[in-house]
């Protein structure tokens, strides 16, 4: 069964500390993995997709097919990173539905 698991509902780190938001998935096939972010009073927006292999706002995420993980990392957290983060997956072919995790609320303490 397709599933996305984000084990941490809440995560607090100090400004300047490294941050890692965990995401594990199960999918029978080759998925595309995404991270979405929702800042306070804003809409859900795409942060990263694994096939782009890019860094956005200092965040990176590597797809580990062996561990079926797609953890989101940033070496130095900033206060503006405080937000809700959702991991999501979709099948490779267009038209496959998205499966979202339950989200992790990140708070960066000044």
């Amino acid at each position, binding site marked *: 069964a397709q599933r996305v698991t984000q084990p941490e509902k809440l995560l607090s780190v100090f400004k300047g500390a490294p941050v890692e938001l965990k995401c594990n998935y199960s999918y029978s096939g080759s998925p595309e993995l995404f991270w979405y972010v929702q800042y306070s009073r804003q809409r859900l927006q*795409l942060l990263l997709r694994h096939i782009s292999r890019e860094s956005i706002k200092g965040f990176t995420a590597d797809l580990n097919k062996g561990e079926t993980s797609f953890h989101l990392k940033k070496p130095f957290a900033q206060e503006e990173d405080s937000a809700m983060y959702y991991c999501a997956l979709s099948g490779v072919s267009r038209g496959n539905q998205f499966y979202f995790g*339950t989200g992790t609320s990140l708070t960066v303490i000044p």
Partner: protein
Amino acid sequence: DAGVTQSPTHLIKTRGQQVTLRCSPKSGHDTVSWYQQALGQGPQFIFQYYEEEERQRGNFPDRFSGHQFPNYSSELNVNALLLGDSALYLCASSPQNRAEQYFGPGTRLTVT
């Protein structure tokens, strides 16, 4: 481009009533998906429309139905509302030949 837009912003309905939510996709996008997001949960896929037809459907009852118009805009209809239908309903659109979805601000539905 205003991006994905949804209307109304908020809606209060009584149990048993019917509701219609509306969505306009981002310019250039032809695929629209609908999600239900309950408090404290991630978005749950309801269905997806492409070329005016339902292409994929999640685990939602037939009370949830939709439509896509020739201009790619879409409606979500929910019949016989239950208290448990209270949630944020999100619309997302996708660009051609790409999987990532772009979300609207949502419609907050409260069923009393």
